[in-house]
């Protein structure tokens, strides 16, 4: 438990959380263990779910079998799906035995109501990550359009 707590707090999404706050998040989230080669999602859009890889290896591919992401321990995916709905079909598959920490949109909204201070910390972290990524993507786009 203590180890999981630390692992959660070390993740950029839950950066700056106190031990107690991390406990609250863990209590209200779920864990999912995938066997090697097991699918987390098969040809479906990813919605309302942020997942952090506590252990293992995940590969995300799209319809055309193109690898979109190759993720390892401490990486996360689905942070955008907490805010907007996706329509693109994805395959999310574990390559080895994988343990996922699942933080759902529902949990985020409940936290917003019950503990706005805690929700604020998480939102600040996510928005910072997204803003940084948006800047990078915008720059890439500008470079390509030149």
């Amino acid at each position, binding site marked *: 438990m203590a180890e999981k707590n630390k692992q959660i707090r070390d993740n950029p999404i839950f950066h700056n959380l106190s031990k107690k706050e991390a406990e609250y998040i863990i209590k209200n989230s779920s864990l999912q263990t995938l066997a090697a080669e097991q699918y987390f999602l098969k040809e479906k859009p990813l919605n309302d779910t942020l997942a952090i890889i506590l252990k293992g290896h995940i590969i995300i591919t799209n319809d055309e079998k193109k690898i979109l992401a190759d993720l390892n321990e401490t990486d996360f995916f689905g*942070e*955008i799906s*907490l*805010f*907007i709905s996706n329509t693109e079909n994805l395959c999310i598959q574990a390559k080895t035995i994988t343990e996922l920490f699942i933080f759902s949109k529902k949990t985020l909204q409940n936290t*917003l109501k019950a503990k*706005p*201070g805690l*929700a*604020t910390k998480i*939102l*600040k972290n*996510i*928005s*910072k990550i*997204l*803003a*940084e*990524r*948006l*800047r990078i*993507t*915008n720059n*890439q*786009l500008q470079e*390509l*359009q030149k």
Partner: protein
Amino acid sequence: MKNPIWENLFRNWNQSEEKQTLNTLKNIPIFYNLQTAEIKEVKKLIHNRFYKKDEYIFQQNALGVGMYIVQKGKVNIQLEDKNNSKLVLAEMKEGDFFGEMTILDEKPRSAAAIATTDCSILGFFKPDLMSLLKRKPIIGSKILYNLTKIIAQRLQNTYAKLKAVQNEK
């Protein structure tokens, strides 16, 4: 000599303007899902500013701390370079907002904003959001949620555009 102090001091006395501000704020995605009482709290933090035609709201590379909402008038968002050439990226009209990225990260402005008509503009700034998050966490976290959602949407759009451009090449 024209003194901005007096202009800024006396313009808040207009009552109908107050109502208009409230209406403008209600329709901004950043303040979606806020009740009227909560919007009124936000209004207390909003700065009303007036800009003449051709006046800069902010310049490219300036240090920014917040976003602006056009209440009346038109604003151009433009890229400027050393050779004095200007590229208009977007035209903002009533109810549009811009510069919201700097609320989240205090990076220099990536483009300039210039008033193309006389403008009435509302400003909402990071220090005010920070104090709101502390003093009225429910309102603050709602705003932060909306803000994050907007950025997520924008990121999604940019990804799509990037993909399209990459496919073209």
